[in-house]
């Protein structure tokens, strides 16, 4: 039996964890290493660490900061932000990442995904998609921390990336990010309906019920959550207990 994973997500800017709303309007919420350790101890199944301005400013990840974050956690860490080369991925792994999430550079150079997968294995390469609704049932992937349009279609782009071998999809709804309005179920469903690899739904987690919905109705394999964890509206533990009561299999 595979458990649904509950994954706190840390958006990193400079030395801080921040919380964007619609991928912008950042607020500082805490220290990355302290928050990661607290989530690990609280029973998080993984941690996501995304430097949300690295691509925009064409910077590399802060590998020292990443190392300090990974130091005290013994669950998987997915790291993204400004990954542009095999060397960047190696450095991220050496700084404690287990998987890397790639958005901007993959859109610009889809073939890079092939090279990354052949070097590190599918399971190491996560496609990060920031999706913005453009019409009913249609979404456009954005890059550079949700700032740049691509002109692509999310479903077509995910299919292309899957053909390059990516092992997991991290799917953010820009429209719901930071709103607590619930997940964008039709977006998640649009991807889980065909994806042969796990899909991590992100953006909009509000009530416990909204998390149940995205798992039961939209078939998310994992759920990434920031606001409601960061602001202590629900704990990892309590969320998992509630999910278990709703017959959703989780690790407790």
């Amino acid at each position: 039996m595979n458990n649904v994973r509950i994954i706190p997500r840390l958006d990193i800017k400079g030395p801080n964890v921040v919380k964007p709303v619609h991928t912008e309007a950042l607020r500082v919420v805490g220290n990355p290493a302290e928050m990661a350790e607290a989530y690990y101890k609280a029973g998080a199944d993984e941690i996501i660490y995304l430097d949300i301005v690295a691509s925009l400013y064409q910077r590399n990840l802060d590998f020292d900061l990443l190392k300090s974050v990974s130091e005290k956690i013994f669950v998987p860490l997915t790291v993204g932000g400004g990954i542009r080369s095999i060397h960047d991925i190696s450095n991220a792994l050496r700084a404690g990442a287990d998987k890397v999430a790639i958005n901007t550079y993959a859109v610009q150079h889809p073939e890079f995904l092939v090279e990354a997968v052949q070097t590190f294995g599918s399971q190491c390469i996560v496609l990060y998609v920031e999706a913005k609704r453009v019409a009913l049932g249609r979404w456009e992937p954005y890059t550079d921390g949700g700032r740049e349009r691509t002109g692509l279609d999310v479903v077509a782009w995910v299919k292309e990336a899957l053909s390059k071998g990516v092992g997991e999809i991290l799917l953010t709804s820009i429209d719901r990010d930071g709103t607590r309005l619930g997940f964008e179920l039709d977006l998640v469903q649009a991807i889980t309906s065909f994806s042969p690899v796990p899909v991590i739904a992100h953006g909009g987690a509000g009530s416990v019920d909204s998390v149940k919905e995205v798992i039961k109705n939209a078939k998310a394999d994992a759920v990434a959550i920031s606001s409601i964890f960061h602001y202590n509206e629900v704990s990892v533990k309590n969320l998992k207990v509630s999910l278990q009561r709703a017959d959703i299999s989780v690790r407790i």
Partner: protein
Amino acid sequence: MKISPTIGIVDYGVGNLHSAVKAFKQFSDKVIVTEDADDIRAADALVLPGVGAFPTGMQGLKIRGLVEPIRAFSKTGKPMLGICLGAQIMLSKGYEFGMHEGLNLVEGEVVDFSALATGTKIPQIGWNSLAEPAQEVWQNTILDSVASNRDSVYFVHSFIFQPRQPDEALATTEYGGREFCSVFKKNNIYGCQFHPEKSGAVGLKIIENFIHLVS
């Protein structure tokens, strides 16, 4: 409690080093990361970590001249632990991106998941439990005090190892309706398909048990 055997963690270019190192450092003060044959010979216990594809891993060992030193180490009876890819390359051959020879420390093959229930996702990414094949088989092994069918560990993989000798399967795991070998043991050579260094308190216990195998 910390003891001080020298734990050699082999750096062959694609490893998940920082994660493994920091986990082993919880239990030993002498954890060295090395791609040097002399260090491998001198180690009290050897770890092959792993993130990556089978051919890349073997190539990484070959270009560093580490295939023979690792094979020689495996014959000393000192504890060895392969993690994920590091465990897979301990088998005779693998079929990821074509057929490739492995270290052949354990007879068998590394194959993709097949015949899984419809809709099962590959890779398996997530927490899953370990089953003890018979009572008390885990005593005095790296799985000592792990709760069979209850404690979960973290898997990330598209391929599985299949040791030829059934009794070399120390633990099995079920995924998508298929049971597969998730830990092998041949004498003092262990391989875990999951990542103990990423499996929270249960994983750390497995690592501690491994270090205590050093006599």
